[in-house]
């Protein structure tokens, strides 16, 4: 199974967890009790910032997003600072730090100051439970899926605080919208994830990866509808473009960020990308099999596979951002309650039935592929049927105007000219 690398040894590069564990245990033998954990936390913070936050969130996130969007918009994107413009995010950050952080006179200063800090913390905490590879998870708690949902509900509070405290009507609009959207989109999101939970029978992310590894199938094939619902809901919660009504720049200027400037704004901006990456990582873990790739992880380090999957998913966010217009707030609410929520319930019903059948068959391995096929067909049919039921008739919209040869008065729609 292990062709050229020896497993379970600290020098096995496929598994960085071994290395860090070896180092920790060695240090624990030398240092007095407890000190090593404080040291490890400090080193871990610095190292994760240097090794992960900086390259992944700043370089790949900001730079990659700007380059890809630039390519989609037939322009170049950042290409001046450093090789290929790679240092552009760092230059931006330095610029933002130098800028004055203005606070409006009548603003609620304390709340406005705390909001970006509260916004940043969950973005970092989210990564604690995501397995990067075998044994490479910071806190392998048994309820890690719940943990992810719980922590990711915190930034809503921070954005609300930001919008409300700035004493600006646009900000207040943004705060109102984000609060109503958080309420609406939390329920279909949880319903969609429940499908995956019921299928795997665990709420631990490592358990889900192990399930994908065991049955050699990714959750996305078993639960395609859940992934679609998850993607839409998470876009809404993260304020990504098709549904970024909370900071809709053409309507309410910048929403809850209107009065922010300098690094306070920079934290919001940077962590938006951080959340999008965390959500992508979560999706890669739950739906795309995490660090496994049908056996390829024996040859390639698992964490590389995981990062590739994460950025594949993140590319979806960028793609939708570069393509789609924005929905209106009331349309979004209607979409969540009338479309996503019923679909989520249907999906849960289907997956529960399948799970029951499956458990009666003693979790036969072949049956899961049948389920996958059935679910893909059912999902398409369900979306189509529910859209028709909601009165969706695409053929009613003519996309070309009528043409007339001669100028004159009003021509009613029925009349040919």
């Amino acid at each position, binding site marked *: 199974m292990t062709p050229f690398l020896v497993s379970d040894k600290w020098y096995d590069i496929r598994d960085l967890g071994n290395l860090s564990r070896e180092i920790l245990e060695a240090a624990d033998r030398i240092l007095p009790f407890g000190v090593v954990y404080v040291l490890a936390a400090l080193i871990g913070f610095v190292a994760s910032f240097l090794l992960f936050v900086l390259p992944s969130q700043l370089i790949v996130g900001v730079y990659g997003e700007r380059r890809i969007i630039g390519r989609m918009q037939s322009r170049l994107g950042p290409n001046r600072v450093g090789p290929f413009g790679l240092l552009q995010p760092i230059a931006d950050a330095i610029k933002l730090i130098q800028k004055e952080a203005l606070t409006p006179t009548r603003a609620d200063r304390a709340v406005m100051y705390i909001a970006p800090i509260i916004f940043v913390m969950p973005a970092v905490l989210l990564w604690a439970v995501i397995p990067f590879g075998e044994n490479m998870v910071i806190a392998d708690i048994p309820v890690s899926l719940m943990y992810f949902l719980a922590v990711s509900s915190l930034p809503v509070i921070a954005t609300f605080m930001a919008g409300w405290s700035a004493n600006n009507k646009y900000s207040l609009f943004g705060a109102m919208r984000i609060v109503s959207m958080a309420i609406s989109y939390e329920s279909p999101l949880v319903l969609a994830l429940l499908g995956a939970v019921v299928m795997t029978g665990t709420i631990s992310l490592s358990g889900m990866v192990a399930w994908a590894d065991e049955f050699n199938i990714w959750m996305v094939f078993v639960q395609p509808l859940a992934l679609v619902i998850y993607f839409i809901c998470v876009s809404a919660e993260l304020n990504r473009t098709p549904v970024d009504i909370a900071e809709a720049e053409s309507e309410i200027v910048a929403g809850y960020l209107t009065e922010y400037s300098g690094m306070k704004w920079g934290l919001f901006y940077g962590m938006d990308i951080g959340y999008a990456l965390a959500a992508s990582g979560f999706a890669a873990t739950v739906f795309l099999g995490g660090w496994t790739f049908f056996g390829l992880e024996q040859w390639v380090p698992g964490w590389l596979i995981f990062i590739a999957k994460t950025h594949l998913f993140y590319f979806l966010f960028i793609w939708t951002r570069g393509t789609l217009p924005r929905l209106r707030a009331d349309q979004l609410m209607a979409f969540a309650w009338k479309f996503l929520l019923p679909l989520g319930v249907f999906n849960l019903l289907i997956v529960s039935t399948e799970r029951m059948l499956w458990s009666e068959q003693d979790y036969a391995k072949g049956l899961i592929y049948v389920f996958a096929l059935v679910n893909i067909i059912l999902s398409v049919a369900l979306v189509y049927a529910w859209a028709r039921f909601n009165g969706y008739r695409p053929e009613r919209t003519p996309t070309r105007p009528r043409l*007339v040869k001669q100028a004159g008065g009003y021509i009613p729609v029925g009349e040919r000219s």
Partner: protein
Amino acid sequence: MTGIIKSEPFVINIGPQHPSTHGVFRIKATVDGEKVIDAEMVMGYLHRSMEKLAEERTYTQNIPFTDRTDYLSSMSNNLGYCLAVEKLAGIEVPPRGNAIRVIMAELQRLASHCMAIGAFANDTGAWQTPVMWAFREREKILDIFEVTSGARLTCNYMRIGGVAFDLRPEFEPMVRRILRDFPPFLDEMEGLLSGNEIFIARTRGVGVLTPEMATNASLSGPMLRGSGIAWDIRKADPYCGYEQYDFDIPIGYNGDSYDRFIVRLEEMRQSLKIIQQALDGLPGGPFRTEVPLALRPPKGEAYARIESPRGELGYYLVSDEGPSPYRFHIRPPSFINLSALKEMTVGGTVADAIVVLGSIDIVVGEIDR
């Protein structure tokens, strides 16, 4: 027990510094939650008193002013003013001059509509992609203007009695390239926006204008045609020989923002048709009638109008036989197209108001003059 959640109406200023007002223009909107219950326009931030200034300068010196009213379609503005002066003084333009004018005006319509649909898509929230694509094409047209007139935005190319310079040899291949490249771009734009469910959901049924309302509110251009009224001054009152060209008037169905968008898109196709015909049949000969620099038209008045990209652009000139106009009035299409803004926005949400404003396609330089 009533049990109704009541929200307090409050006033928000959309503008003057706002990403979607396309300049310093302000809507004072009273909103109840997200719903607009009253809208009031505040304008004049860019008022430069052009009509007064023009009374102190000669007829020829006034041409650069017209560049700066609607700075997104300076060729059309030049043309309208020159037509008014020619009508007042009874000057004939040679056929080559007319053909060049038509090509320029139609290229300007392409450039201006690029901006209009790009900015409109931006207002619906499409994050910059349509506007960038539109700008890519617009740049090519501005390059042609640069080659021909020396300026990209404020061209100052038309003259009383013709145009300022003859065409350069590079001109024709550049226009042919536009004719080749533009239809694929329009198809691309249609693929990106016209059939997009979100775009349709955002614009269909938003800012509906009935034909009666559109007529009564003096609207013109794509606003009028979007409401189903077949009215195009190029057809109804041809100038510069538009009667020789074969083209159609696109008209909409319900008069909503989406109709105005597809009308603009189709107008670009029609413009390409006109340019093709005008370029194929470009006559030789002089491009300008010689006109005295200090022109003194006979006593009288003239109202001449053209179909500018935004609608009916009229110039009303009164002459007292002096070297400068006694009265110089511009009938700005985007100013008068705003007449129905309140009727279109009230009852919708703030997001709808932005879409409606985008569909009107205002240029603040023209509103305030």
